[in-house]
């Protein structure tokens, strides 16, 4: 970071700071006076105390997503949850079907396992969303085959914030009968309500650190009522219904449970406030000519705004704003080059425009003054870079 002043943080979709109330509860599990015991050690009070907290957290997470506590399987995060869902179902169902349906705009934590499954002999259909980023349930219906074992569609897209119609997709899967529906909801908690049981979902991936909880913990919700069966990826101890062996990290899951409880309780106040800030940001950026909003406002989660800026090169744009605001390009950056966002490319944006896009993600601690600072910084940077590029002088 250049300069002494801290940049305004507008990258809440990448991660969030831990809410102080969450941190407090986590700390209570770490020290000698707290519930530091192994929750698997039920032969003494230390273990029992930790176990009680783990189960309380399980209940908090389940309540936040409309599941029952027994459905919650702790993982190290949404990436592990996605891997467990995809490989777990595929491996368990290998005898009955080898076809999977997903979309081109899923997170890499879904796409990469799908590619690996293809290498292992499964067939994967990658659906292309419309220009707004939405997958039509009819597309899913058309893609389903008699041997489809799994459909994996994310709820809130991490780059443009578009919210998929999970209810409609779930209905299609239910009509098919054999295809399990997995939903990656890493970006959803506290932003877009999702009712696991009511929607009839089979599997749901969750992350704590996108919702003011700690990094390194997540969960896979696995419906017992619907008889979902998985093959474990990690063996050695049989914790978590034999689906995820390893000592449960009490402080982490307590953090996740507290964060999800807070998210559920404060959503109705927090979300409208953030939505207003996002629209303030968009109105400020829209003053610049040649900007495009990626994802229609009515179909996107409140916290996300993805904007393409014509006439500026992507890496320079990010460099020019980075002393003032912390945002993401929505593209995979390496040390030497930028790769245009595959999500924006899948929506039909050309490579240059996809590269010159910024993802602004607002959150619980974002203020109006910070949004105004961001507007000023981006307008200044884009104007300067367009002048340097002679963007309206032609080339």
């Amino acid at each position, binding site marked *: 970071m250049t300069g002494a002043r801290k940049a305004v943080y507008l990258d809440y979709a990448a991660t969030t700071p831990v809410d102080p109330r969450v941190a407090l509860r986590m700390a209570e599990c770490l020290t000698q006076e707290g519930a530091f015991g192994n929750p698997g050690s039920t032969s003494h009070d230390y273990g029992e105390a930790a176990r009680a907290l783990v189960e309380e957290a399980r209940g908090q997470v389940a309540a936040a997503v409309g599941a029952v506590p027994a459905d919650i399987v702790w993982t190290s995060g949404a990436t592990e949850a996605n891997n467990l869902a995809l490989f777990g179902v595929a491996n368990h169902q290998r005898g009955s079907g080898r076809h999977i349906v997903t979309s081109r705009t899923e997170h890499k934590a879904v796409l990469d396992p799908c590619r690996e499954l293809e290498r292992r002999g499964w067939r994967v259909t990658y659906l292309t969303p419309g220009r707004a980023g939405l997958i039509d349930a009819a597309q899913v219906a058309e893609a389903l085959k008699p041997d489809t074992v799994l459909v994996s569609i994310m709820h809130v897209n991490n780059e443009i914030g578009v919210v998929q119609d999970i209810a409609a997709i779930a209905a299609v899967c239910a009509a098919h009968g054999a295809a399990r529906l997995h939903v990656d909801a890493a970006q959803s908690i506290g932003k877009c309500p999702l009712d696991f049981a009511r929607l009839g979902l089979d599997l749901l991936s969750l992350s704590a650190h996108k919702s003011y909880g700690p990094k390194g913990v997540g969960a896979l919700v696995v419906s017992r009522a619907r008889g979902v069966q998985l093959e474990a990826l990690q063996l050695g101890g049989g914790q978590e219904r034999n689906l995820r062996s390893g000592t449960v990290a009490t402080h982490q899951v307590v953090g996740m449970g507290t964060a999800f409880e807070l998210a559920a309780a404060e959503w109705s106040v927090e979300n409208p406030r953030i939505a207003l800030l996002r629209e303030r940001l968009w109105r400020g950026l829209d003053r610049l000519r040649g900007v495009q909003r990626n994802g229609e406002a009515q179909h996107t989660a409140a916290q996300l705004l993805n904007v393409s800026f014509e006439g500026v*090169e992507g890496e*320079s744009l990010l*460099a020019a704003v980075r002393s003032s605001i912390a945002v993401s390009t929505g593209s995979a950056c390496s040390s030497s080059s930028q790769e245009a966002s595959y999500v924006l490319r899948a929506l039909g944006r050309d*490579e*240059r425009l996809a590269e010159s896009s910024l993802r602004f993600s607002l959150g619980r601690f974002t203020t109006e003054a910070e949004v105004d600072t961001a507007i000023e910084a981006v307008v200044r940077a884009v104007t300067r870079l367009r002048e*340097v*590029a*002679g963007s309206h002088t032609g080339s």
Partner: protein
Amino acid sequence: MNYSNLTWRHFENPGCSGVLAGAGVRRGAAGSRAQGTWVQFDVRMRSLNERPTIETVRFLAYACPHVIAVADWLAQEAAGRPAEPVLPESVHALRRRFLVPIEKLGRLLVVEDAWIAALTSPYQEGSA
């Protein structure tokens, strides 16, 4: 991506960005916006006799910070030098000076091509 202090300085304050017009100005460009790197140099000569020297250089660049910084540095450094279609220092030396990753060497070659194009181009229409 991390940038050297020299890169930051020229990227954040490119004092030589812009265009020139009038007598004694040559213009050359290379690369393309569609490919992600485009650079243009305008070079004003001090005299039009047999050994002209460079008086002023301005540039435009649709490019990454490294390319913008190198173009700005070149524009500053070239003033007073003989108007020859060769960079004040090699592309490899520029890469080392600005700590440009090797993967971006091709982008620096675009800068060189634009420089050579400018120095070998005819004077702009309306020029002396």
